[in-house]
């Protein structure tokens, strides 16, 4: 099993994610506000990036969302729109269809999610 996903959030993704999630913190949607805070632009929601790690793991497990039992992540650094994110992961432990994956999300050479660990059940009962 190989966990890999590439995605480039477009310029307006943080706005759509803000609407979908309800998190309208201006650091994510207001470029001027973000620049005043010393950032080069508005930043991605960490939980959006975590959702990409979740998606990468569910896809690798065959696409059934019930296969994802647990996901923990550490947010490090910041993600930005209009730059490709790469999620990678590898199996750390596997027994009887129960898999532990170590994963991370990288953007522009920086790991924006590290020490992610996913627990997957490859034969979930529906």
């Amino acid at each position: 099993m190989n966990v890999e996903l590439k995605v480039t959030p477009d310029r307006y993704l943080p706005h759509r994610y803000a609407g979908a999630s309800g998190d309208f913190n201006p650091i994510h949607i207001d470029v001027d506000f973000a620049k005043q805070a010393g950032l080069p632009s508005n930043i991605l929601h960490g939980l959006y990036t975590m959702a990409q790690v979740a998606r990468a793991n569910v896809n690798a497990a065959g696409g059934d969302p019930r296969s994802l039992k647990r996901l923990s992540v550490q947010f490090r650094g910041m993600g930005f729109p209009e730059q490709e994110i790469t999620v990678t992961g590898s199996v750390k432990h596997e027994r009887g269809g129960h898999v532990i994956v170590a994963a991370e999300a990288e953007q522009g050479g920086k790991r924006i999610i590290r020490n992610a660990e996913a627990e997957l059940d490859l034969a979930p009962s529906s």
Partner: protein
Amino acid sequence: MEAIGKTFAAFEYEVGKEKIGEYARAVGEENPVYFDREAAREAGFRDVAAPPMFAVVYSSGSVAPALFDPDVGLNFAMMVHGGQEFVWGEPVCSGDLISTVTTVKDISEKGGMGFYVFESVSTNQDGQEVVRGTWTNIVRGVS
């Protein structure tokens, strides 16, 4: 820290098909079980299924008041979301009524950084646990 162990009133969220679709499109999901009722039922779900990370949508209304609680005293200007864990149980589908209760799990300090850990537990209308979230926020420059 006297806020540790403090539990907040339950927050209720009714899950809707269009909200699931909006969220699923925003995060790039393409599996039809998140959009199409028939596809979801064929896959064994009661109704359109929510992606696992939809947990953010129905539980954040419970976590936010805990973050803003004066007893917790979290300095937002210096806060970053340091870590997140979700443990999933029963799948969430359109039509579910999800109730979430948040507790202040731990507040600690290490090397001038404050660690504020909250736990949210979400259950559906049948009392089944759907997700347990651990939200870790880090505040720089606490004395």
